[in-house]
């Protein structure tokens, strides 16, 4: 009686990782020097 070897378990196909966006609040160092006076509104 012959027997065939049991099939090797196949690795489960990786599920596509879910991509997402990340809102990153800027650090102080990234804004330092950016807040230049514009004159702005005065009313």
């Amino acid at each position: 009686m012959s027997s065939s070897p049991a099939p090797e378990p196949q690795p489960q196909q990786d599920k596509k990782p879910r991509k997402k966006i990340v809102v990153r609040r800027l650090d102080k160092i990234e804004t330092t020097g950016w807040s230049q006076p514009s004159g702005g509104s005065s009313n």
Partner: protein
Amino acid sequence: MRLPRVKPEHAPHRLGDGSVRLGGVLYGIASEIADADGWAWAALTLMDGTRSPAEIAAELRSRFAGLSAEEADEVVATLIGSGHVEEAAPGPCEALSEREKERYSRSRDYFRWVDVTPRDHGWEPQVRLKNAGVLVLGLGGTGSHVAWSLAASGVGRLHLVDPDVVELSNLNRQVLYTEADVGRPKAEVAAERLRAVNSEIEVTASAARVDGPAGLARLVDGFDVLALCADHPREPGGIRTWANRVCSVAGIPWVSGGYDGPLVSVGVFGPGGPCFECVRAGIPPRPGADYAWPGVTGASAGISGQLVAHDVVALITGLMVTPPGYFHGLTLLDPDEHVYAHYPSRADCEFCS
């Protein structure tokens, strides 16, 4: 959120590397999104107040073949939660009348700008101001500006305290009084003026002189914030020490402002931070730094008062809050010089240790 719309002050800009900048460049507001796939830019473009979140997500999926339904929903939800988006079809705000909404419309625009918490209708900070009560102690150079600013801002209940009468030499800086008021009690005149500025709020006044911590404790009871604009008796052991001890026990935050000529500063104290006596003890003594001279202009008094008013509004609204236990300010002699003092609680503090 029914119809999300990017706040006009937070309008998105695409940077050279494909990322998206939101909220301009102001620290505490501005943010960036790495956006190699272009999803965020597309979603923000679609958030113009004419589409529901589900419609925006569906449109994203139609534009980006690789975008799953879950991913599209998450992109939209993330942007809505970022604080850069407002409700274009806000629910009713019944706490404010139509007249109040017109009066405070520019304040609402300001709060929308600095507020990164998603809101139902955007009037929430203004409603907090309406429901708040502030004790303004001292109606001189600093206090007259504080009282005007808080009344104009819509703080619902103001109590004004000052024992003095208006003098001609007050009129170079004390914004609530005129020549016709010389000789009249400041508290009485100030209350009249503020009721004329804003009839929507309750203004009461007293010419009482605060002579110790017990009297201050009675006055401040029932208020949300103390604006301390009196400077006598001076430290050590003076009126700021009284305020520190009374307000600490009562759990009430307090703000104190003033000027030493061109050196203008404000201090914010309250639960969660080192007490006034800790911070004051941390400031290194410097020979000649104890000024106490009377020179002042309308500008220096006004800046100190408006800094106090700003910090009071910040404490009430929960927006832009200076950490408690902080002195900050500026010297008008040097635009480069930012003045601040922030020291931790001291183990040997006579009061709070």
